[in-house]
């Protein structure tokens, strides 16, 4: 057996979800290689070489791979995949975009968003917004998988010393063109890797009121998230969204503020270790899964919480 992990990175740094994917790969067993696809990204390959457990690093460094366009990345991954029994990528918007294209090129099924590994061909994955877990067995010769980061610990970023080798290019398909990115810039931790997350819902009332959450987030070293309702209402950008179709988080502490608790939101956070719900509606479904519930007006609670945390 040999496992290939497709690294997610921005040509400068490896994204943390890659490390969780490496742990999943380690559970499958066999030789482990990491593929770094991008442009001017040798530092990323060198960082990948240091990840504990990695045996080889494959580097594809080409101008047309700079923006990780699926049409260009997928043929490259597919050209290498036949040497491996498993090809894994994080189930982030990067992995979700690229991997099904690879699967179609290889004529194999993809197993999406796995949260557990039973054996080399049997995997656990959430379906119906996490309201059921399916145990699926693959009959394909190459298992193509995306990995739910929160279900696997991060592999140590140091400890390995793999060699970096370049792989042949598969060319620019010329199908799509990168125009630009508008990325949220924040000093706070990234949502999916933060130890504490504080999220706001429709009850926040406006985008300005998210400042109340940010004050608390900064005291706790927390990331700020939101429910779909808050994103749809335009309070905060899309990358804040936690839920079935947004980000999946599982921090040590999740504080849900003014969030009623639709199943689509619970799907994104119910694996958190400790859940706190603050909502003025005592009947809100979020209280059914919260470890600590405070039924009160968030506009009273949040300033008070900020003060209490300073004590």
């Amino acid at each position, binding site marked *: 057996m040999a496992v290939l992990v497709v690294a997610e990175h921005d040509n400068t740094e490896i994204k943390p979800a890659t490390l969780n994917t490496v742990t999943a790969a380690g559970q499958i067993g066999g030789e482990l290689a990491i593929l770094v696809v991008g442009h001017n990204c040798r530092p990323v390959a060198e960082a990948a070489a240091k990840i504990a457990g990695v045996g080889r690093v494959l580097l594809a460094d080409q101008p047309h791979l700079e923006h990780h366009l699926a049409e260009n990345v997928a043929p490259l991954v597919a050209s290498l995949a036949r040497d491996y029994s498993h090809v894994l990528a994080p189930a982030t918007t*990067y992995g979700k*975009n690229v991997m099904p294209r690879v699967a179609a090129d290889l004529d194999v099924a*993809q197993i999406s968003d796995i949260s557990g590994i039973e054996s080399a061909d049997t995997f656990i994955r959430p379906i119906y917004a996490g309201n059921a877990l399916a145990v699926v067995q693959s009959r394909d010769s190459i298992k193509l998988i995306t990995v739910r980061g929160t279900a696997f610990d991060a592999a140590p970023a140091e400890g390995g010393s793999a060699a970096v080798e370049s792989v042949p290019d598969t060319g620019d398909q010329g199908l*799509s063109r990168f125009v630009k990115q508008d990325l949220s810039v924040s000093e706070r931790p990234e949502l999916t890797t933060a130890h504490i997350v504080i999220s706001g819902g429709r009850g926040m009332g406006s985008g300005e009121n998210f400042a109340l959450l940010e004050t608390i987030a900064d005291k706790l070293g927390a990331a700020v998230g939101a429910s779909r309702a808050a994103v749809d209402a335009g309070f905060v950008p899309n990358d804040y969204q936690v839920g079935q179709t947004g980000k999946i988080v599982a921090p040590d502490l999740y504080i849900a503020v003014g969030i009623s608790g639709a199943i689509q939101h619970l799907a994104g956070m119910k694996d958190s270790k400790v*859940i706190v719900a603050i909502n003025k509606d005592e009947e809100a479904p979020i209280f059914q899964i*919260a470890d*600590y519930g405070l039924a009160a007006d968030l506009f009273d609670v949040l300033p008070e919480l900020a003060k209490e945390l300073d004590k």
Partner: protein
Amino acid sequence: MKVLVPVKRVIDANVKIRIKADNAGVETTNVKMSMNPFDEVAVEEAIRLREAGTAQEVIAVSLGVARCQETIRTALAMGADRGILVETDVELEPLAVAKLLQAVVEKEKPDLVIMGKQAIDGDCNQTGQMLAALLGWAQGTFISKLAIGQGTAEVTREIDGGLEMLSLKMPAVVTVDLRLNEPRYASLPNIMKARKKPLERLLPEELGVDVAPRLVTLKVEEPPKRQAGVKVANVAELVDKLRNEAKVI
């Protein structure tokens, strides 16, 4: 321009699902079924393109059991012009769906395929990307904005870090996120009219596609249940519990 919109029949988003007693799957008998919510957004976008004069025809396609006709009729009632049902009792995996859609695309030759980014039952998020690959077309996934240019589709994608804008060569496949638009409700007169719109039926064999599953579902189980905890009376008690009981801050 011709637009193809695949639509999937799924358990209604508001239904609390039940796992079958033998753990073979999720109970679908006597359960309310609806169009996948992401596909409603896709249908809406296609109809808006036609209303704007950018598209001339919108075709809704569904694949699966005979009752998927109902899902197609919903799309027709929203405003799609005609429907195609590829009928099969096989539980289709995304790769098989993509191959069937590829065959339909080769037959109908649309300029654009607009589809949901994922279905809320399997949560796979694969089919659009697979279809684009099989056709050798550009893909724009998880889009929250679409504009048709000169032989291009300009899309804004919702990605983990924020937004990304791409220019896709047409023909292309785009998969939609929920913020692209607010789907309309079909009016009663339009529901009546939809009954008379053409709906073609095809079989996978006629399209020459092998739809045999690649994965075996060994079992479907309940996830671990979370128990409700305690209600605290005030902020001081909450902070005390988090510091001294849960020890998370």
